[in-house]
């Protein structure tokens, strides 16, 4: 299959932001996740937990609450005091509305979904009516003394519970007045703490209010009498989050020690109707605070400061014990943050607020499999490009020739021209961007770096001509009438004639760049596209979907290739289908047209289309190097999938030239080293 020199890059100093909120939408089986930098991500749990959409963050917009309302409308609220609604089609912010109550700490949608409740810093609880295209302030509830940190509706919609500092208030929704005020004990392990913060409340339909607080307690209250029914001390630190299942037979809490506890309503004796809440399972998947939890019908979802999104299926709820029943830990975004210039061997790293440009080193030595070669030149850090303004970078790209860099934030598009004079690098911003080009979801340069393709958030695809430093708008492919769906993935053929674009759900469209018209649409598929690329020479479009299927579509012939049909008929190896990270990049070998190179976070694979496909009985991946010549030959010809799992977690892998690969790894240990220290727990008398 070939020997490669691999540039193993570990200096991409990327640290994901901590997870602040998660909100599960039962209707669409989607999960919204907000991070401390304001980014909101949408995961499709039905599509193999693929992160299908994201909204870039904003420095001043720290989200504190996230909720779905009115079916599939997503709202967030944060410390800037604004309530934001997201446009899930166009992938931008529909509107932001100031609640005029200071920072917002909590938000809850009514059980019917038509009303929205926010809890503010000044102690006010504000009720908003959700209208078809906006929200409208309705009224205030009785003002409380201190900030409202948590809110929960009674499923019947008649009452709400609001957690504040040192007490929980129960409001009557009709009158807006406080019915009960339940004081939470400040005692913490016998010592009186300064304050007891009620981090979360949950109102059950039978009138029970469950609260979690900073003293490590989970408490059950009777909202009719305002009395404490039961108290569980579960942690030495704060219990920061709670989520109840729809059936109200189980709930989950997350603590600052990184533990997630599952509580279940179980009968007291085997055949009595009397039931009680019992702490059943502790899970320790996090090292840091679990800031937020969610409870889907089949799994517990948690996230926190350690940046992992953990989805823990409940085994008793999983009907088929297949691979979906396994624990999922999502750490890295399912999109590319890295682009590379093959010609100049440059890597462009995208961070939230800056870009870094690195030049790879070189070596003259050769070696055999597994050797580390001595460097004749180390990698250079060429450029640190900081964005202007508080917005996060959405996407970025460096041209294959290395002389253009483009990136976009939510409101501005930037294009830079790079000049290399010996060792000096000069950077010049291309000014006078057209007014219609405000924000891009994906940027791509053609192979010869003469064209720039931009997928704007209005659904249009723009083509620009780049020549010598000048910049000219050529054409815009407008979205089909009636759809506003944004395109998130672009692929262009090596000859620059074909442009493929994929949206979140509408399938893949192929445009003819010469004739500037829509060429064809790839047959629709149920799962979102995770990566695609057009093969040189043949102009076959290779598409990877989130269910781990890979298709090859011939653009000139407008149908799936024979190989793709064979693969579909034969089926992929079960180990291939069981991978839990999506393929994020596909590339091709210039000299070997039969090879497809693809990678996900844990493996790098070359598919040799000329070799037979593996069936479920063949050994799919053999980590051990072959011992003798015959074994080498045997393994080389055994089946089409040649896999390497040496580099992980692998964020990017591309072919620089025929014999050189670049692999960008981000070891988890390096991320953990940059996180704040976790709460120290006593272990074994230390």
């Amino acid at each position: 299959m070939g020997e490669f020199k691999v540039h193993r890059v570990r200096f991409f100093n990327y640290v994901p932001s901590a997870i602040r909120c998660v909100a599960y939408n039962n209707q669409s089986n989607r999960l919204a996740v907000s991070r401390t930098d304001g980014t909101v991500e949408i995961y499709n749990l039905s599509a193999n937990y693929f992160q299908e959409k994201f909204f870039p963050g904003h420095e001043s917009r720290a989200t504190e609450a996230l909720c779905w309302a009115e079916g599939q409308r997503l709202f967030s609220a944060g410390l800037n005091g604004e309530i934001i609604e997201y446009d899930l089609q166009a992938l931008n912010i529909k509107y932001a509305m100031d609640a005029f109550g200071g920072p917002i700490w909590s938000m809850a949608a009514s059980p019917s979904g038509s009303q929205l409740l926010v809890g503010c810093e000044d102690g006010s609880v504000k009720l908003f009516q959700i209208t078809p295209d906006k929200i409208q302030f309705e009224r205030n509830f009785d003002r409380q003394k201190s900030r409202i940190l948590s809110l929960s509706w009674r499923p019947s919609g008649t009452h709400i519970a609001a957690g504040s500092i040192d007490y929980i208030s129960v409001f009557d929704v009709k009158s807006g007045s406080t019915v009960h005020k339940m004081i939470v004990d400040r005692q913490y392990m016998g010592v009186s703490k300064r304050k007891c913060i009620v981090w979360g409340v949950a109102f059950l339909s039978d009138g029970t209010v469950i609260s979690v607080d900073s003293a490590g307690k989970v408490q059950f209250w009777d909202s009719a009498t305002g009395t404490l029914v039961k108290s569980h001390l579960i942690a030495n630190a704060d219990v920061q989050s709670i989520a109840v299942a729809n059936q109200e037979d189980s709930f989950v809490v997350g603590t600052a020690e990184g533990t997630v506890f599952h509580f279940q309503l179980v009968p007291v004796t085997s055949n009595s109707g009397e039931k009680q809440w019992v702490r059943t399972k502790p899970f320790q998947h996090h090292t840091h605070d679990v800031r937020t939890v969610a409870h889907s019908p089949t799994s517990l979802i948690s996230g926190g400061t350690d940046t992992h999104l953990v989805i823990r299926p409940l085994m008793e709820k999983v009907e088929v014990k297949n691979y979906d029943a396994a624990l999922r830990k999502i750490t890295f975004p399912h999109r590319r943050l890295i682009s590379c210039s093959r010609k100049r061997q440059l890597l462009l790293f995208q961070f939230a607020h800056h870009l870094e440009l690195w030049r790879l080193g070189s070596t003259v030595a050769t070696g055999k499999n597994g050797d580390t070669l001595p460097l004749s030149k180390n990698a250079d850090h060429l450029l640190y490009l900081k964005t202007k303004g508080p917005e996060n970078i959405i996407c970025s790209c460096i041209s294959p020739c290395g002389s253009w860099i483009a990136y976009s934030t939510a409101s501005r598009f930037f294009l830079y021209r790079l000049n290399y004079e010996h060792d000096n690098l000069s950077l010049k911003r291309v000014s006078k961007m057209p007014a219609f080009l405000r924000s891009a979801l994906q940027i791509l340069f053609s192979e010869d770096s003469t064209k720039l393709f931009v997928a704007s958030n209005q659904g249009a695809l723009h083509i620009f001509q780049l020549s010598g430093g000048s910049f000219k708008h050529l054409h815009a492919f407008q979205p089909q009438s009636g759809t506003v769906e944004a395109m998130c993935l672009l692929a262009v053929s090596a000859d620059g004639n074909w442009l493929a674009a994929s949206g979140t759900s509408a399938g893949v469209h192929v445009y003819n760049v010469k004739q500037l018209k829509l060429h064809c649409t790839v047959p629709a598929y149920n799962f979102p596209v995770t990566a695609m690329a057009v093969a040189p020479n043949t102009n076959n479009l290779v598409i990877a979907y989130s269910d781990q299927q890979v298709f090859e579509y011939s653009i000139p012939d407008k149908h799936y290739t024979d190989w793709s049909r064979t693969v579909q008929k034969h089926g992929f190896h079960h180990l291939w289908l069981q991978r839990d990270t999506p393929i994020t990049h596909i590339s091709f070998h210039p000299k070997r047209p039969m090879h497809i190179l693809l990678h996900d976070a844990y493996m790098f694979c070359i598919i040799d289309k000329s070799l037979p496909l593996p069936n479920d009985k063949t050994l799919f991946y053999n980590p051990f190097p072959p011992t003798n010549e015959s074994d080498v030959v045997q393994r080389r010809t055994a089946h089409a999938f040649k896999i390497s799992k040496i580099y992980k977690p692998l964020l990017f892998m591309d072919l620089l030239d025929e014999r050189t690969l670049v692999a960008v790894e981000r070891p988890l240990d390096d991320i953990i080293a940059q996180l704040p220290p976790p709460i120290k727990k006593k272990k074994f008398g230390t």
Partner: protein
Amino acid sequence: MASLEEEFTLSSVVLNAGSEGLLGVEQTSKTDQFLVTDNGRTVILYKVSDQKPLGSWSVKQGQIITCPAVCNFQTGEYIVVHDNKVLRIWNNEDVNLDKVFKATLSAEVCRILSVQGTEPLVLFKEGAVRGLEALLAEPQQKIETVISDEEVIKWTKFFIVFRHPVLIFITEKHGNYFAYVQMFNSRVLSKYTFLFGQDENSIIESFTASVDRKFISLMSLSSDGCIYETLIPIRPTDPEKNQSLVRSLLFKAVVSGDARHGVALTVLDQDHVAVLGSPLAASKECLSVWNIKFQTLQNSKELPQGTSGQLWYYGENLFMLHGRSLTVIPYKCEVSSLAGALGKLKHSQDPGTHVVPHFVNWETPQECGLGAQNSEQSRRILRRRKIEVSLQPEVPPSKQLLSTVMKDSEKHIEVELRKFLAIKQTPDFHTVIGDTVTGLLERCKAEPSFYPQNCLMQLTQTHVLSYSLCPDLMEIALQKKDVQLLQLCLQHFPDIPELVTCACLKVFLSIADDSLQETDVNMESVFDCSNSVRDEKMEEQTEILQNGFNPEEDKCNKCDQELNEKPQAKTKETTLCPVIAKRAALLNAILHSAYSETFLLPHLKDIPAQHITLFLKYLYFLYLKCSENATLTLPGIHPPTLNQIMDWICLLLDANFTVVVMMPEAKRLLINLYKLVKSQISVYSELNKIEVSFRELQKLNQEKNNRGLYSIEVLELF
């Protein structure tokens, strides 16, 4: 109201109790722990609440314990006397009684007496008494004779009266009884003679005593079945004069006069005494609690397996030997009420009532007890009457099986059992199997000719039985020398006590070859000896051995070479299995069984020496076979593992080393074993060296993996 609670057996270890029973049960400084001295060589420390032994000590073979072990409450040490004159003192940490403190005395010891709050006393057979400290200061001191010739000490007790120790002992000479009371504050010894009433010839069976303010109240149980009370003044009026004691009748005929077994009496508290014996001549023995004041029977408990006529009472527990195991019956006495004192007649079991099965079926709720079963039965009868024409009886196979077990022939039982097992998983499967086994075993005991081997084997193979469920099964199999059944039991029972394992081993080793040939034992654990594929393997093995040492570096080069060569030469002679294949299969079953070393060791000592050597030879043969292949396993389906083999070699040698060392025919074997150990030690030391170097390599490897931020590597995909 005095009540006897549910009895329990102190572990399943069967004590070595002869016809005389145990030597004694004594308190220790911890309230819950008791020292039990058996009538042989062993002292066991039991924790009653846990129902398990905490420790066990034995004297050497050939020695015999002559006086029950006691605890020195002041130091917490234990004291025992063996061979009449040798005193041993040890504590919990000691393992071997041979290595503990030893004092040889000049006279024979009768008893050692120890109570809380004072130092132990040693009572010599001649009647002299010494404090332990004084005695140990000069063990060979001269001991005077107190009692006359032919006078024998029958019973003794040690009290603290007004903080002063008082010793009372009773002697017997030609049917005359004498009581001696030794005061230790005044060093006065008073002698009393018992004056009997009308019936001069009655023998006193058992004594017990309690202390009142001024008197020692001595109760005695005579052979006529009556309890008499004698009051002995603590402060004698005239110590020099020989005084007489009159005894008064307290109870009449509490036990039958002509009891075959021993009877025993012990005072429980001021008002209650416990009597062990058969109340009527023909009936079984029972333990009864009598109220002295009201002269009523308070409680009684039948002990169907018989006792040794010994009874001890400490704290709230009554200890006795029931059958062959030490049984504890907790005794409690609440405040008496009149109603309670009016007495409770011993309830006899009405033969008509349904006996509650002692196997609880965990799979069906137990609520429907008697009534349900009866109604079911009646319903069944009704239904049977209705459809009398139908040929198939409606009785469930389980019921039918149980009834067959009691009456029918072996053949018939077998057919029924097969029928039942074919249906298999009925909800009451466990209980039926349990009841069937107990039924069969009871019948086996009653009819010596009845021995349904096939049935018992089938039942054993159901995997439902265990030793504790039917201890008689193995006992009967041992009696009948049914090695086939014993092998099955060893394979299937998880809880066989070490004594029984050892008994099985004895049978397996002693049974004659020709009688073995007739039996049909399971041979799957034995590999085919005739199979000679070992030539090539053998070479491999020597290579491995040589890799273990480095002949250049090793100092005892010569001896190593010898070692390397020897096994090769020896294999020729040892390739022949020392036992026939069937015996090997049986022995393998022993090797696979679970055991605890502490409890196995004393029993292993009882195996004859030639059997020990045979077993050792077999084990050595297995070891050689094991080391022939690189994985250190034996061929076959379920062979003994190397660890099991080595453990048993060690155990056997530990238990019988002195015996084996003296035997000329075992000498060769011992030398071989010695060399084997030596070679193992050197191999392991080499392995340790290798481990260190491997660790270094691992460290280097880790450093290699820990790359910097950027590197260029070569990757080849296959």
